[in-house]
């Protein structure tokens, strides 16, 4: 592995790690706000316990998210100094607003986690909601920075100079809305499915059924709605990619040749040598329709893109397939569950439905990782689409491979530590929170 590849791998590792924690950090506060609201309204102690149990888990995720995010803000310079030198002043706007959002989030989190029984109850509830809102805002802002890398705007690039910088225009680049919407939905779907699945598993094991059923219900509603909306937002993203980043679209669909009435392919193994895809299912005309809303329109293939400007086809294609496949699966599960709720069917609480959710625990997060792989790898060889190549941006320091090993070791240990802690939290739910409901507890 050379230093360049090591730098890219280290970046991918750090982001891939951070994204899991940031999704949870963005979404769990909303779940907690709901259960907290029920507790304040109904004084049903189970809801208070759910809120507290969740907030303890979330504190662990928050700390890990905060440190891994801090690492990222340094890594941008440590690994890509040439990029940051030019890009910093242009796409810095979302980052500086993000700083504000994080700050508010961290403050509100302090109030929320340590403020039980100390403040006015609704003020306390409100601080929890602020955690969620500012977390979501920071996610949206940082994604707008990423969409600027995919579709740079807000400056003129003349003879290697970055002129007429307009940081506000760069922040509201043409792609930010789709990408932010898609990412926010993804965070809700991924976290919702994971949380619902864990509680479903505990219900199946017949542990603290009352507690876990109520927790499951809160998570599953968010998850299902997000999962149903997600493919629509994904379609919007795909159309946008088709217009602004034809190389990425061609790679994700492994479209080697430009053509009319291009089919959408599902699965398949791209064969780069012979420029064809084996064993794929084809749906005639659908890709043309997805990109241009016309079954007969032309879609640009890789043949129109210089070989040195082409992204790796196989990774991008597989990542897209994984994301879409899991997206469809999650939408299906969501439909099943929601129709059970709407038509008041008894089977919605049956074992097989719960098993379905247990099975779906990792799907959302795998889709998130796949989606980011598609976005980032599909942008290669550019770090700043069409303007700066990733290889021009990398740090001159040799030996990045060793810091890559170091970070890998640290992140793997952290991942194990977090899983271990979470396992202990869940195991302790019975001991800490399993109180018969008729006990008369002092009101808060």
């Amino acid at each position, binding site marked *: 592995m050379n230093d360049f590849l090591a730098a890219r791998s280290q970046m991918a590792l750090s982001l891939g790690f951070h994204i899991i924690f940031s999704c949870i950090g963005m979404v769990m506060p909303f779940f907690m706000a709901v259960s907290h609201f029920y507790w304040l309204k109904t004084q049903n102690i189970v809801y208070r316990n759910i809120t507290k149990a969740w907030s303890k888990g979330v504190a662990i995720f928050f700390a*890990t998210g905060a440190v891994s995010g801090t690492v990222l803000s340094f890594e941008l310079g440590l690994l890509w100094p040439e990029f940051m030198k030019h890009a910093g002043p242009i796409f810095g706007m979302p980052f500086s607003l993000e700083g504000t959002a994080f700050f508010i989030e961290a403050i509100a989190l302090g109030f929320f986690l*340590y403020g039980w029984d100390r403040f006015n109850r609704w003020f306390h509830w409100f601080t929890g909601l602020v955690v969620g809102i500012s977390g979501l805002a920071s996610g949206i802002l940082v994604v707008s920075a990423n969409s600027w890398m995919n579709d740079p705007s807000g400056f003129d690039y003349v003879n290697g100079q970055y002129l007429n910088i307009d940081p506000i225009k760069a922040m509201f680049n043409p792609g930010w809305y789709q990408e932010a919407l898609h990412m926010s939905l993804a965070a809700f779907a991924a976290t919702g499915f994971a949380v619902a699945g864990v509680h479903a598993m505990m219900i199946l094991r017949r542990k603290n059924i009352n507690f876990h059923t109520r927790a499951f219900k809160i998570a599953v509603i968010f998850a299902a709605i997000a999962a149903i909306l997600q493919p629509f937002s994904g379609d919007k993203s795909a159309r946008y990619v088709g217009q602004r980043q034809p190389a990425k679209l061609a790679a994700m669909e492994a479209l080697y040749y430009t053509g009319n009435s291009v089919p959408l392919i599902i699965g398949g193994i791209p064969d780069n040598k012979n420029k064809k895809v084996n064993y794929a299912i084809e749906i005639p005309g659908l890709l043309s329709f997805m990109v241009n809303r016309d079954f007969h329109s032309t879609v640009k293939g890789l043949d129109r893109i210089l070989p040195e400007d082409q992204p790796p086809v196989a990774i991008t294609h597989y990542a897209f397939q994984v994301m879409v496949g899991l997206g469809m699966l999650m939408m299906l599960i969501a439909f099943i569950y929601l129709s059970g709720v709407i038509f008041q069917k008894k089977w919605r609480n049956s074992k097989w439905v719960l098993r379905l959710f247990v099975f779906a625990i990792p799907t959302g997060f795998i889709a998130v990782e796949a989606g980011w792989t598609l976005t980032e790898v599909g942008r290669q060889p550019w770090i700043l689409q069409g303007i700066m190549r990733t290889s021009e941006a990398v740090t001159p320091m040799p030996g990045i491979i060793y810091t890559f090993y170091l970070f890998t070791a640290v992140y793997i240990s952290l991942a194990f530590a977090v899983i271990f802690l979470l396992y202990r939290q869940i195991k302790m739910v019975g001991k800490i929170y399993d109180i018969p409901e008729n006990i008369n507890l002092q009101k808060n």
Partner: protein
Amino acid sequence: MLYVVIAYLWISILLYLLLAGADFGAGILELFSSKKSKRVTRKLMYRIMGPIWEANHMWLIISIVILFVGFPEIYTTVSVYLHIPLVLMLMGIIARGTAFSFRNYDAVKDQMQIIYSRIFVYASVMTPLFLGIIAGSIVSGKINSGADSFAGAFITDWLNWFPLSVGLFTVFICGFLASVYLINESDTEPERIQFLARTKNMNIGAFVSGALVFAAAGAENIPISQWLFGNQVSSTAIVSALLSLALFWFLMYKRRYGLLRILAAFQVTMIFIAVTYSHFPDILLFRNGKSISLYEAGDNHTIKALGWALLIGSIFILPAVFYLIYSFTERKIYPVYHEQE
């Protein structure tokens, strides 16, 4: 607007030093305390620092963001030549933040607590040590942009006596801030006396390591006396720091704790003023005598937008931060609901 941005950068770094410094310091104190007093430190620390540590560390993020948006030359040069100490500092930040939270939120309190604690205290020393090393290297004029060997470009910039002694000094300053801060938060007189004793030790430590900084500067031909006494602002700041130090010891002797905290913050601020003023605006010095000035900021529009973002952001942030710190330091008796744990 450039001055607004520079002022925010300066204040963010200072607040990071003061607030996060006290935070690191609590870990440093834990390292140097006996078993029994460890428990006291820890108890106080979770009560006082628990709610605010994440917010305290945001000052670092704000400084970094200001640097890379407003002063990309400085940010990227530091990132390239000081890559290694930065990575080590990041390791400290990761280990410390996670161990602190894991220790508090692990649902089962068993042997793992010892491991978390050990990681936490060592990382609490390591992080400010490397922060100090980085700060020391930036101003020491050893950054070698023309080196032709790996060691010359990426190691000897920072592995020198001067940065190392600045790092050590930073560690003691943090310990000092924490022990002073905790004096007033203690519930009982014996606890207070304990923190008083540690304040004295940390203060002496800071003094000795400060002398080391001077010695190292002398050995490496760094004109530190000229920085600190060569202009009126810096020399006034140093003299005020020394005077307030005398008052500080007098009050400690008299057991008048009320003002100590303010005096300690004042001393650190004065030292910070003295060093930064004498360098302004050339904060990054190279071995070949060149430097990067804060006036060579990024694009004008960006500075303007950044300045507005900071001004507007602080309308939201500052009152909330102070309310947070206020709420959790004031020792009211709360109707505490006892959990079943």
